[in-house]
């Protein structure tokens, strides 16, 4: 049998693969002229040059490795009898390996042919380049972040982490990335990341490496850079990011927090963890660069303060020492002391390490107190105890603790958990303040829109413009007073805010009333008055036609106020003649406020009355009948009202 025959025979025609042992030996001699190694592998033991195929197979020892090759083709060939080839590396050499199923004296074997590929045996120059390109492209794709084109985390883990190259190492973390992502959508988030990478790229050299380290965290490695240069570059990067505009999202303003250190002969991995800590210090200020022991743009970062609560001195001291000098440590030997310090420092304390078993007030009681005063929402607690039964751990988590460290303490575990928790809460606090700023902004805009609208109405009515402001103020005063007089009416917290706002719209229906009637100096005729009275229904209808907002509480309340602020408690008002509490309480309150303010203000048809006169007119029922409780409330707030008139 010649080589040709052996390798061209049909896969499954076993008869053609059968040889005797003398035939196969001759065969092997021929093959050895072409291949560097030829060996027969048998399932159950050595034969000639062979090892065995099934485990414990030692055939891999040829490759100077200690365990079976992951891509063992002989084993596969032995099982399914199909020939295979593979490339195998040993040191820097490449070997091509063929496996082929054969039968020798009726026994199953796999023949392995191994050929070393040296420079000469490689492809022509062109093909070689193609292969290299293919391999390097693969390499590139594997180590590149698809979105930003920066290197990816895998690149750091595989190629950089262990490196000891002297370099400036910086962590760059986007401020409030989560907000862009959540409020403007993921496309915006992606565009932000691309923009940031471009901004950084413009400041760095070709030899620098930029890695997308986490979602919105970038790692910059600048080999061989000078110290001054490094700090300068980082500040430039910060400015560049700040100045960058995100294509398609011109409303987004970017900023980043940067922490930078020198690797100083340490591994990059260690440098990264230091840079991360500095970055997080920068984060407390935002849009800031902090470098190792050097200036930060916005002044020195503050050290975080930690409260350690444990009745044993030694245990407190051990924890304190483990946390090192990066924190300011407060100590409390009992639950009571802990509460005292928390009352004193509030959220100045960034974290509490809390023991469970203590005299008098124990750890759980402290947690209870913290929950009751809503401190636990703002001040994270890590429980420490040797009381590590599942039930006490569960109980601690139910109380809202962030983490649990059991004795004996391991300094790295303690340090890392404390660091992680503080970092998480710092981010959360910043997000909360951002969201509340935005809510305030939104609320302010709402109030402004309503003011503009009601000013338009007043302007047309020829009123002073203060009517809306006064109505809103008096409505608020009455609303505050009402629950002290009666618990008959349930006004929710939201309604408490919405009713005064909606009160400003009570007269919008006057837009639909003829100017001549609206601003007639003298007394209205009966017909004119009938037309004037339609303003309450007109206003309500205007609001009803806003289909889109029909279910909005503000609109519903405004509708009720518009339609019914001229109803009277005895049923003698307009337009519907509602009686008593058929009139929504919101409209009842506004009707009192409206009448009072109309009396003390000057109008085209009347002079302003004094506060005393106005009160007397209302109390005598000369302006119609009001809910007696509201009249009482009006009396209660007299002092404030009188001040307002002055």
């Amino acid at each position, binding site marked *: 049998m010649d080589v040709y025959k052996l390798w061209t025979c049909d896969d499954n025609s076993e008869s053609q693969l059968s040889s005797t042992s003398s035939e196969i030996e001759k065969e092997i001699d021929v093959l050895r002229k072409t291949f560097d190694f030829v060996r027969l592998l048998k399932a159950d033991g050595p034969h000639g040059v062979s090892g065995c195929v099934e485990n414990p197979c030692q055939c891999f020892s040829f490759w100077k490795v200690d365990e079976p090759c992951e891509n063992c083709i002989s084993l596969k060939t032995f099982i399914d009898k199909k020939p295979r080839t593979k490339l195998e590396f040993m040191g820097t050499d490449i070997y091509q390996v063929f496996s082929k199923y054969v039968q020798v004296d009726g026994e199953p074997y796999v023949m392995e042919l191994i050929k070393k590929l040296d420079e000469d045996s490689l492809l022509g120059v062109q093909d070689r380049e193609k292969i290299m390109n293919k391999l390097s492209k693969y390499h590139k794709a594997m180590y590149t972040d698809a979105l930003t084109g920066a290197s990816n985390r895998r690149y750091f883990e595989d190629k950089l982490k262990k490196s000891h190259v002297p370099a400036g190492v910086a962590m760059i973390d986007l401020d409030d990335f989560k907000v862009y992502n959540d409020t403007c959508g993921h496309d915006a988030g992606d565009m932000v990341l691309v923009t940031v990478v471009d901004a950084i790229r413009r400041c760095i050299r070709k030899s620098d490496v930029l890695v997308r380290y986490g979602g919105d965290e970038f790692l910059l490695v600048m080999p061989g850079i000078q110290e001054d240069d490094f700090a300068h570059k980082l500040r430039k990067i910060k400015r560049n990011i700040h100045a960058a505009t995100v294509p398609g999202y011109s409303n987004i303003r970017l900023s980043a927090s940067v922490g930078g250190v020198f690797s100083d002969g340490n591994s990059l991995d260690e440098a990264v963890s230091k840079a991360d800590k500095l970055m997080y210090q920068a984060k407390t200020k935002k849009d800031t660069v902090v470098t190792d022991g050097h200036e930060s743009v916005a002044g020195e970062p503050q050290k975080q303060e930690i409260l350690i609560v444990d*009745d*044993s*001195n*030694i*245990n407190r*001291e*051990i924890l304190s*020492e*483990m946390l090192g000098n990066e924190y300011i440590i407060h100590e409390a030997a009992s639950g009571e002391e802990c509460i005292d310090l928390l009352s004193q420092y509030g959220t100045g304390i960034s974290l509490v390490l809390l023991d469970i*078993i*203590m*005299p008098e007030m124990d750890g759980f009681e402290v947690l209870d107190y913290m929950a009751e005063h809503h401190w636990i929402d703002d001040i994270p607690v890590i429980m420490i*105890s*040797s*009381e590590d039964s599942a039930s006490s751990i569960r109980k601690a988590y139910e109380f809202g603790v962030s983490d649990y460290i059991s*004795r*004996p*303490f*391991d*300094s*790295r575990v303690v340090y890392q958990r404390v660091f992680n928790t503080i970092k998480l809460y710092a981010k959360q606090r910043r997000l909360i303040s951002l969201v509340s700023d935005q809510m305030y902004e939104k609320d302010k805009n709402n109030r402004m829109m309503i003011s503009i609208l009601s000013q338009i109405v007043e302007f047309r009515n020829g009123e002073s413009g203060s009517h809306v402001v006064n109505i809103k103020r008096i409505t608020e005063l009455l609303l505050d007073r009402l629950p002290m007089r009666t618990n008959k009416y349930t006004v929710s917290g939201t309604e408490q805010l919405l009713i005064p706002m909606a009160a400003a719209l009570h007269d919008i229906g006057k837009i639909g009333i003829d100017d001549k009637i609206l601003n007639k100096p003298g007394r209205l005729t009966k017909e004119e008055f009938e037309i004037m009275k339609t303003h309450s229904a007109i206003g309500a209808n205007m609001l009803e036609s806003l289909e889109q907002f029909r279910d909005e509480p503000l609109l519903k309340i405004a509708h009720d106020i518009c339609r019914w602020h001229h109803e009277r408690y005895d049923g003698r008002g307009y337009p519907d003649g509602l009686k008593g509490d058929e009139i929504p309480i919101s409209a009842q309150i506004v009707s009192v406020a409206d009448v009072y303010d109309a009396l003390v203000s000057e109008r085209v048809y009347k002079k302003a009355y004094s506060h005393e006169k106005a009160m007397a007119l209302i109390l005598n029922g000369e302006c119609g009948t009001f809910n007696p409780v509201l009249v009482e409330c009006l009396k209660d707030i007299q002092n404030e009202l009188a001040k307002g008139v002055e």
Partner: protein
Amino acid sequence: MTTREFYESIGASYDSVLVRFGSEKMITKFAKRFADDTTFQDMCKALEEKNAKEAFRMAHTLKGICSNLGFDELYKASYDLTEDLRDGELSGYEQDYEKVCEKYKIVYDSVTKIDN
């Protein structure tokens, strides 16, 4: 004696504490510090005064300190005593108490001999 020798003399593993503490200086500091700690004495006093709750708490604290410092034998003994006292009853703890005293003495005698 050195701190390592101290740990060997009380049958505890210096290396496992070193792994957790990360510095030899820190181990020495806190091992020596143990000699001044009054938790053990407070516990004895509470037992004398038949104050079960306080005795439990002190045994528990002692257990925690020993766990941190890696005083394995004293830790085990105080662990057993803590469990005896957990239910607030002062009965059946005597044997474990004696064991704690015995182990405490071993630690105390050696810990005072650590060189500066």
